[in-house]
């Protein structure tokens, strides 16, 4: 199977690679590991703006010696998907492949969809796993607000996939091996040299003017936090978010929130956890006032340990949690905060007798016996 990975390196990427590029490349590496042995020929088509990069993300480390070939493709108007589509169509005409893999970001989803449509292929977005069997490609993706997994068999080639967002496991940065670049094409700056000029995109780019692009700066520090206090609609007000911010500080945690909390303007966009926000993998996540709808829990399910607090003992979040408390978060969390503050001032202060944790094993299946055994000691 001939495959290509399509990524946008940002601008300009001369020295240090864009961290978000490495995250997307890491997601693709994880995905490609499933079908690495089936790929006979792999290329990285890396778009860039401005000066060409001299470093690239390491695609498929350990499965092949790295990308067999690298193509650097300039793009003038990276904010317009049409700029990429025209180049990709031209590239595909020149070097047809069976599989095109795109990043998990919005651009990747859009390009996968539109390329498949234009090339008469099949597309799927948010793909988590895939399997190549008897010349057919099977893929899996989340469905029904991340409660179910849907499996599909894709139709005609080329298969254009965008991978699912996962918790950070960024790819390494490697220097571009110029021999690999030059062995493919004498002109590394433009793959179109010596050919007819590529067709302009039928939609064009003149419909957009006065473009202002600003990076969205996150001040929450949430994406790489070791401890996260993730809160849901149980918060009820912006004032309560301020109380929870204070509690999170004492816990040594960063405060994150579900979509309804952010959409109610009780928290900023940089605190949004879930499919439409951040996918996290902290050591500890305390999920409080969260029902556990799939779109949110997708953002915390990779946490090392999840403690859930909810007044409804049947809330789906307890299915995901290692430990749970059925009670009001605004009663439990201040008590926990007080305990931490007390222990900081007097580490030797004895606890009152603590009741044993009761296991509701009869209601739930066992997945992580290690944590359970440790907690029962």
């Amino acid at each position, binding site marked *: 199977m001939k495959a290509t990975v399509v990524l946008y390196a940002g601008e300009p990427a001369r020295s240090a690679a864009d961290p978000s590029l490495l995250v997307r490349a890491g997601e693709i590496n994880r995905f490609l590991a499933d079908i690495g042995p089936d790929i006979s020929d792999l290329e990285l088509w890396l778009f860039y703006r401005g000066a060409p990069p001299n470093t690239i993300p390491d695609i498929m480390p350990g499965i092949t010696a790295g990308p067999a070939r690298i193509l650097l493709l300039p793009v003038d108007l990276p904010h317009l*998907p049409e700029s990429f589509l025209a180049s990709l169509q031209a590239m595909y005409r020149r070097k047809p492949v069976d599989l095109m893999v795109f990043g998990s970001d919005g651009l990747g989803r859009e390009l996968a*969809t539109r390329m498949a*449509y234009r090339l008469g292929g*099949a597309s*799927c*977005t*948010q793909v988590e796993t895939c399997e190549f069997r008897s010349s057919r490609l099977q893929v899996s993706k*989340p*469905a*029904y*607000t*991340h*409660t*179910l997994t*849907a*499996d*599909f068999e*894709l139709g*005609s080639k080329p298969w254009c996939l965008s991978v699912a967002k996962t918790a950070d496991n960024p790819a390494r940065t490697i220097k571009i091996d110029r021999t690999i670049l030059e062995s493919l094409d004498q002109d590394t700056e433009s793959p179109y040299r010596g050919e007819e000029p590529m067709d302009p995109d039928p*939609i064009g780019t003149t*419909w*957009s003017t*006065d*473009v*202002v*692009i600003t*990076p*969205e700066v996150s001040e929450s520090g949430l994406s790489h936090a070791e*401890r996260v206090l993730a809160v849901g609609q149980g918060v009820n007000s912006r004032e309560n978010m301020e109380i929870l911010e204070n509690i999170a500080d004492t*816990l040594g945690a960063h405060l994150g929130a579900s*979509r309804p909390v*952010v959409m*109610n303007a009780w928290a900023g*966009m940089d605190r949004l956890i879930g499919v439409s*926000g951040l996918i996290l993998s902290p050591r500890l996540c305390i999920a409080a006032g969260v029902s556990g*709808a799939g*779109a949110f829990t997708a953002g915390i399910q990779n946490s090392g*340990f999840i403690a859930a607090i909810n007044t409804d003992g*049947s809330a*789906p979040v307890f*299915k995901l*949690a*290692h*430990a*749970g*408390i059925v009670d*009001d978060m605004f*009663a439990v*969390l201040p008590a*926990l905060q007080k305990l*931490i503050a007390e222990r900081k001032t007097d580490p030797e202060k004895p*606890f*009152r007798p*603590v*009741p044993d*944790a009761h296991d509701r094993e009869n209601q*739930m299946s066992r997945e992580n016996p290690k*944590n*359970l055994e440790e*907690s029962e000691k």
Partner: protein
Amino acid sequence: MMKALVCFKTIPDPDMFGNQEWEAMDIHQPDLSFVKRIFNCFDESGLEIALRLSGRAKASDLPFDLQALTIDDVRADLFLRHLLAVQYDRAVRIDPGPDPDLYPDLRFNALAVSFLIASYIKSLGEQNLVILGTRGGISDNGQTGPLVAERLGWPCIRDVSEVDFVSPHSLRVSSRTDNTIMTQTVRLPLVLTIGNAPESPFLRVPTLKQKLKAAKKKIEVLEFPDLGMGSETDQNIDWKTALKNDKALTDLGLRNRGRTCVFVEGKGPQEKAEGLYKLLDDQGLMP
């Protein structure tokens, strides 16, 4: 004249059912008819953004035609009625017809959905703005908007958060995507897919008077073969081919969330907090 169409879908409220309900039903043909339905959250933002845009245009005495479209059965009429009450000019439903088995499963078929939407838009003639949610709850494909744009040959802006009126033929559009905020002036026609829109998260609620007035308005219902009827080519459409998917659903399964939850018990919140503290401290997770 700006003529806007907002496409939306309603979904079973994901907060109203969990794994226990899923485990009790046939996952391959899940019957979620018992679950309260809500607007898909991104579509809801799109519906409100269009209303605000319409309000601004009309305040400047500029004509603005606003209609809402969904592909659904009669259960969606309640939502269409709501939209008529909050001043949508037209509410249109494309009905799968009395025998939905005649047509392919649309749940994971963005190609078919985009075909129906694009056919409807072409049948209108002068439409110049289409707004959709960036993705929906059941399939979560995020593909319908870009595919509608491809079928119409129009530009598409994804993850839109705000839209403002510039002239009858242009808009100022802000989008939050891939760690950037982008604002641009754009010429119609155009497809917008709405992402996280904190300035317009929820659809407004109609007054009783508006509801009573809307009760008398008509919801237009079309069936698949109605779309594009009138031209010789369209009359010959093979609907099964037109609505064919590029991927075949082979299985649906519950995601692996079978974790054992240890419930920390106690007489009150204080005791429970102490139990949790000890549990986390034992695992080296406390600060």
